């Protein structure tokens, strides 16, 4: 019986990718995606489970069985409409959601084989719509004559603004940088999330009616209280967790040592990989050491490789099992030739004439579990070793950016320095709501979207009662 079942379920349709050798030398997207036949074939594997366990894994509750069955029927236009009822940034989520921990984790098929490739299908229909150029807009409610200011144009802000606009409110997004998208624009590299895709999804939010004002730092150019006096009725804060953390070990300010935020911002936002056509420079290392084990570390390592590094070492103090990065990204990084050095951590950075030349590392072992449940790394005394390095990238996480928070002392923070929000996404300041990384610490795109959407509903309630 069991055997029979296994045979009756066809295997997951593989997705075409650039080969590891080829892609390690360019910044083009790694995943080439499904074609229509492949998408239909993959969609046809769905069992259309009545209880749709997959939906439990999606923070924005995309109606997965419905959109998948529309793909299986070949009605791609209807499929994307279905997704967009819940998720306004599908081409982005289809690419960067950690599906293996979310929707696909709960898919019934995974009990008997590989789960349905929900993310790839989402990417396929979103790309199909974008490439066809026929972007349909959902119905909007009539104007409510209420104005909302959204601070930050990352996924949380975009999702919140999109939904508020659909509900008939007039929405303005204020963004500190010259370009909108938050981490989608400055952090996640082109080869994983092409910037044209991000721009098109942002265009969709604009088409819904949200206006975006770049080059405005709230807390500097304008204060929250001024927004209220200018006639905004509510404010949503989606400012992200953009302050890079450093290791605080000697030599960290040597030339050639970067935070991942700086390295990736130079490469992505400022297009330093196209220097000197673009003015912003970046150091192209021969031996690059990346410290960390998350998506940010993988992105940094793979960017350094594409900038021409001979050796890229990834230094992580736990084992591959504990790495917070997506499996797929770890896999891709390995295929491309990133050298993993697990159970080790930097002790000090060594330089000559002010430039980094090597990282003095020390080995670790896993000890007792810490608060997060992960086993804590313990230093193995006397196990020092050296890694040569002319560029080092520190990707050990971020904290709350202080700019806005310092300017608004009346917004309460939680113990970790992030904005404290109540269940309904309200902050301690009247009329001010918050969501995304600035409330949770670094999380995921789809969680940020989820909080942005729920906050939009709460703001709607607040405005209309």
């Amino acid at each position, binding site marked *: 019986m069991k055997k029979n079942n296994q045979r009756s379920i066809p295997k997951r349709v593989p997705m075409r990718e650039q080969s590891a050798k080829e892609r390690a030398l360019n910044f083009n997207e790694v995943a080439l995606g499904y074609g229509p036949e492949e998408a239909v074939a993959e969609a046809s594997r769905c069992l259309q489970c009545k209880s749709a366990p997959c939906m439990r894994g999606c923070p924005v509750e995309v109606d997965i069985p419905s959109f998948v069955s529309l793909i299986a029927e070949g009605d791609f236009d209807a499929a994307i409409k279905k997704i967009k009822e819940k998720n306004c940034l599908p081409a982005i989520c289809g690419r960067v959601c950690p599906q293996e921990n979310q929707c696909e984790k709960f898919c019934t098929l995974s009990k008997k084989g590989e789960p349905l490739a929900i993310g790839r299908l989402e990417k396929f229909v979103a790309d199909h719509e974008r490439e066809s150029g026929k972007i349909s807009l959902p119905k909007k409610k009539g104007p409510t004559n209420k104005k909302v200011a959204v601070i930050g144009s990352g996924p949380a802000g975009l999702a919140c603004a999109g939904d508020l606009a659909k509900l008939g409110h007039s929405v303005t997004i204020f963004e500190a940088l010259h370009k909108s998208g938050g981490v989608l624009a400055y952090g996640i590299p082109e080869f994983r999330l092409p910037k044209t895709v991000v721009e098109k999804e942002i265009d969709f939010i604009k088409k819904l009616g949200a206006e975006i004002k770049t080059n405005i730092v709230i807390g500097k*150019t304008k204060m929250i209280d001024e927004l209220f006096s200018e006639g905004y009725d509510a404010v949503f804060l989606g400012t992200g967790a953009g302050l890079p953390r450093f290791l605080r070990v000697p030599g960290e300010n040597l030339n050639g040592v970067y935070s991942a935020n700086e390295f990736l911002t130079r490469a992505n936002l400022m297009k330093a990989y196209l220097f000197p056509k673009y003015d912003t*420079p970046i150091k192209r290392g021969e031996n690059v050491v990346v410290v960390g084990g998350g998506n940010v570390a993988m992105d940094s390592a793979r960017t350094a490789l594409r900038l021409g590094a001979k050796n890229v070492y990834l230094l992580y103090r736990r084992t591959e099992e504990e790495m917070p990065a997506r499996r797929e990204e770890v896999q891709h990084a390995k295929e491309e030739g990133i050298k993993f050095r697990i159970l080790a951590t930097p002790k000090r950075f060594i330089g000559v004439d002010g430039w980094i030349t090597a990282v003095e590392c020390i080995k670790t072992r896993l000890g007792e579990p810490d608060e997060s449940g992960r086993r804590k790394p313990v230093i193995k005394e006397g196990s020092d070793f050296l890694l040569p390095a002319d560029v080092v990238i520190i990707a050990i996480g971020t904290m709350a950016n202080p700019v806005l928070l310092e300017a608004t002392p009346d917004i309460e923070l939680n113990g970790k320095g992030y904005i404290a929000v109540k269940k309904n996404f309200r902050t301690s300041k009247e009329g001010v709501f918050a969501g995304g990384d600035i409330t949770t610490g670094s999380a995921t795109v789809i969680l940020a979207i989820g909080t942005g959407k729920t906050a939009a509903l709460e703001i709607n309630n607040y405005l209309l009662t």
Partner: protein
Amino acid sequence: MFKILKKEKLAPLVFGFEIEAPEIARKAKPGQFVVLRIDELGERIPLTIYDFNEKNSSISLIFQEVGKTTRQLASLSRGDFIGDVVGPLGKPSEIKNFGTVVCVAGGVGAAVIFPIARALKKAGNRVITILGARNKELLILEKELSSISDDFFITTDDGSKGKCGVCTDILEGLIEGGQEINRVIAVGPAIMMKFVCETTRPHGIKMIVSLNSIMVDGTGMCGSCRVTVGGETKFCCVDGPEFDGHLVDFDELMNRQKMYLEEENTSLKEHEAKELKKGKCGCKRDK
């Protein structure tokens, strides 16, 4: 887009721009800066807000041509646009009545110190200004600074104007002459600020410097601008740009300023080659 309302040449390679930027003008305070990007291909560079006029809804910037971006900026004219300008960034200067404040400016540092000195004067301080440059041609804002200073000194390296020597000579003279000094503020090249700090250190005089580290976003997001102050890493753009000069690791700052020397040269050479191709000399306006 930000319109250039006025352009002025202040010295060889030093220009002043007045830029339409109502939102920044409304908020700017002495000591703050903007980050600008000329166009889509451009890098983001920080420049101090020299003056701000809320009524005109404009800000003024003064900059020296040192590399590709400032050279390209200098080639723009009145009526042209700058793609992106964001600010005011950084913490404003501490303005109080301290008593007697000595303001020491080197080169284009004069542009940074002017709004601070003016505010200090207005707050009731006795303001003594020392303006230094390599030679007479490179002195800027002489009139403006002297008009708001109780005492005003000029030094040039070659003696072409004022006292021959460096600005620390005058400062030392003042201190040794028994002048009561409650605070010294120095802005200029890192090496000059370092020497001013060494001059005041033995006398325990409060010392403020405005640091010019390399920046990208200017909002605390990247850490490119990190400096060591009192043994701790600080971000110049959000924690500064002003710091207690006696705590700053100037050698590290000077080292970090050299990070992209090679790339800056490449960039400038490419730019010059392009200017040549266009048949323009590149010294005035290539638009």
